């Protein structure tokens, strides 16, 4: 019978360290399932907090447990009511169906997986490790000087003691000691060991050491081996501003927002460009991103509008390319800028001939990259089926793609000479491979 108050119980926080271990397991899981994470993420609604929710499966305590009953009973509850009452309504997760078709609703909502909140930046880090913009060039004009902070580069004899360079100072001292020993030997003709011992005994003073040797007062019982540092040996690190030279880069995102792009297609397009935009913003602090939407006419829009606004109308793809061409000519001349153009549509175009001409113009300018992404998806929310689905076919005919890769249920095309990429997206699961197709391994820096 005793009560002991442990107000100052040691707060070793075991829980925290084990929680970190759990977090690490979650990270590994996310790393393995980034594709699903991208596909499932309700990015467009959750932008403000810069956090995304990711369902993490597989971190459960596996045991032999009972499943659901034959009658489909979910469990036992308690409370007033009568048969047939709806106790709770749980909205279904993710309106579009994920890979593998529509899964059954979780029998026990919230139990089947843990939802974990992840910072967008962190997710990007995992997703696009070592990826960067392809074909980036050093443009001669108008490079940007990006201050990166401070760095230690040169060494000097004078400086603040807090920035002393220990290794260099010791090296200097050792070298000087060696010179002194040589000098004693030359002066007196004694063996090296004696000279060294004398120097130690004299606490580093040359004159005294020579005097000791000459008077035969070298005592080998005195411990030796110390290095004596003199003011002259001191070396200091010097601080300097660190500057990095970067090439200018601009990304022009073009998207078809016409009536044929139904809700689901727009979701895919936006999702893809969202990740591309976030990635560039994180990786390159100085990339300019421009957004163009088009129906029968094209216009430059802001980021917010691009990602959140809905529109409808006809489809004239060339307008977007014309506008981009105009922007390149006026704002981002290729002599100064690396220009990247990404265009997403569902492949419907009223005037493919003219679009080809515009694309041709753009390719002729030798932009750093042009990526065309076509979304092929049965979308009941879009007005479709007028037989205009011909853009990819025409592009393939006009610009030849020597490299063709079939992977994960979709196809990737590449023309290295024209720096022209094309992809087909058929579902959420293709967003990640398509992005990886566009971004290459970062070369150099």
């Amino acid at each position: 019978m005793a009560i002991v108050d442990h107000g100052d119980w040691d707060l070793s926080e075991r829980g925290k360290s084990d929680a970190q271990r759990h977090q690490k397991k979650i990270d590994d899981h996310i790393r393995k399932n980034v594709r699903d994470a991208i596909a499932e993420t309700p990015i467009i609604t959750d932008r403000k907090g810069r956090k995304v929710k990711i369902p993490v499966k597989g971190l459960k305590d596996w045991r032999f447990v009972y499943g659901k009953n034959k009658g489909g009973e979910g469990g036992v509850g308690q409370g007033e009511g009568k048969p047939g009452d709806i106790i709770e309504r749980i909205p279904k997760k993710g309106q579009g169906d994920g890979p593998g078709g529509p899964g059954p609703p979780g029998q026990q909502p919230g139990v089947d997986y843990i939802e974990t909140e992840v910072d967008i930046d962190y997710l990007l880090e995992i997703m696009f490790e070592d990826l960067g913009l392809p074909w980036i060039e050093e443009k001669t004009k108008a490079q940007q000087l990006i201050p990166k902070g401070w760095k230690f580069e040169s060494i000097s004899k004078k400086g603040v003691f807090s920035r002393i360079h220990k290794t260099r100072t010791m090296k200097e001292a050792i070298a000087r000691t060696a010179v002194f020993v040589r000098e004693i030997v030359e002066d007196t003709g004694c063996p090296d060991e004696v000279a060294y011992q004398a120097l130690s005994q004299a606490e580093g003073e040359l004159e005294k050491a020579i005097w000791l040797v000459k008077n035969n007062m070298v005592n080998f019982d005195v411990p030796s081996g110390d290095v004596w540092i003199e003011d002259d040996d001191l070396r200091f690190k010097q601080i300097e501003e660190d500057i990095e030279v970067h090439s200018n880069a601009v990304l022009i995102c073009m998207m078809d927002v016409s009536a044929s792009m139904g809700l689901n297609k727009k979701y895919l397009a936006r999702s893809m460009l969202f990740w591309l935009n976030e990635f560039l913003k994180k990786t390159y602090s100085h990339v300019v991103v421009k957004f163009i939407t088009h129906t029968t006419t094209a216009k430059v829009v802001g980021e917010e509008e691009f990602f959140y606004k809905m529109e409808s109308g006809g489809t004239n793809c060339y307008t977007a390319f014309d506008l981009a061409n105009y922007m390149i000519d006026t704002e981002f001349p290729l002599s100064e800028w690396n220009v990247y153009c990404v265009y997403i549509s569902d492949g419907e175009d009223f005037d493919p001939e003219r679009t080809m001409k515009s694309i041709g113009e753009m390719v002729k300018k030798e932009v750093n990259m042009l990526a065309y992404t076509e979304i092929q998806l049965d979308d009941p929310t879009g007005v479709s089926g007028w037989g205009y689905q011909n853009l990819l076919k025409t592009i393939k005919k006009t610009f030849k793609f020597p490299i063709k890769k079939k992977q994960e249920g979709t196809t990737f095309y590449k023309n290295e000479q024209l720096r022209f990429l094309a992809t087909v997206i058929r579902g959420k699961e293709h967003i990640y491979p398509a992005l990886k197709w566009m971004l290459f391994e970062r070369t150099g820096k």
Partner: protein
Amino acid sequence: MTPSDLRRLIKVEERIGQLAREKYGLQVMDIEFDVVPAQKMLEIMAYRTPTNISSWKYGRDYERMRTIHENIEAGLPYEVIINSTPPRAYLMNTNPFAVQVLVMAHVYGHVNMFTESKWFQAGRRDIMHYMAEANKRFNKYERRYGIDIVEKTVDAGHALQFHSSPFDNETENEKRERIFDQTMAKNRPIETEYGDIVGSNREEAEVDIALHNQNIWRKLNLKTPVEPTEDILRYIIDNSRVLEDWQKDVLEVLREEGRYFWPMIRTKYMNEGWATRVHEKICYDLFIEGLMDQKEHGQYNYSNALVKAMHKGQMNPYLIGSEIWKDIEERYDKGRFGMAYDNCNDAKAKEEWDTMAMKGKDKIFSVMRGYTDWFFMQEFLTPELIDKINLYIFKFEETMTTVDVVRTRHTAKQIRDLIINSFAHAIVPKIEVVNGNFQRKGGLVLRHAHTGVDLDMKYATETLKHCHFLWGNDVALKTKLGDRDIRVNVKADGKVQAPKPEAKQPPPPDIWQTLTPNMMEW
């Protein structure tokens, strides 16, 4: 907690002890209470025992509890009690005084049950030290063998630990001897009716039987396990060919921990119900005696209501347990039991039935001492009670945009059956090791004793993978999906074979049938 609060707490605790022992006749060991900071309390709750080993699972639970603690209103009485000698309990120092008292009285209820219930008499009493020492060793293993493999072993041990009962201490050899002795006792020469006239060939028969017994012994030696055993971990530790010594140590510790929790898992509803009844009674007395004041009454009521809250989607053991105890006591006080009451068809007479039997107290104590949840529910969760406390079954109905949780039309009796079948006793399904050398290739065969509720296949498969990691060879689980016999296989290379229907084979000849010779009757 201020010193004056602490002094008052000590005084009240003394009174609680007196009330429990003298007024209510509860046998209670002396309890040690530790008042700890909130963060420590959450940690203890996440780790189940304060000195438990490190695992990502506990880290996860700690985070979860911290989130809950930070996001909901204060005043939820957290309790952790360790069934050791002496029993230890923890109080959170940020709790209001009334909540501390509630928790202390509640703990007295638990300790009473630990002291008196026969199910708690076999476990080990030094679990705190045991786990603390184990944790030190495990840390060493992590440094020596790497955290991943240790974690994998711990996870596998966790997956199987609750299948070991503290009452099963027989070794494989002892079992073999016992079975052999039982069989030997059966195989006696039988004296026929006219034996004395026709002359008995008793000596011949005895030689025959001796030979036969040798035969049985040989076969018993080949049989592994000798008889189906529920203690999966014990069997794996003793017979696996891939486990290293340190892994065996890890599994041994986790098995011990499982055995420590075994009675608690199986008496959850009784235990929480009992403790809730005790704290309600004792706190009532304390308020009457003036040891607690009126202001504290409000806080007490609020916290008590949180403890006994009805949940839409799950059963609250505190509430349901205490309702059942209350019901038993009332019924036995009024003599509403036995043939006469059961056979009475007059609803009005039943309603007013009161023989002033006053057997309630005796009954609840005898039930508390000897029952587990399953028996408890089986016998005392009557359909009348289910209607009274508004239990229902819900199911999920899918619509276009939502999943609805809908109350079903089950009658009270059906609800009762479902609860007994699946929810009350069903925390640990009965799974036995039936063969440790399948087809002489060293495969492990587990069998699930199907009680009408299927296993969760996803969980079963993942758990089998854990078994496979420990066993290092083929692992199979025999169970049922609905009426269909199925078998889940994890092959030696770790590949899972989708559950497939068990091939209809003639039942294998029972070893006893084949061994019972015809010549037994002379």
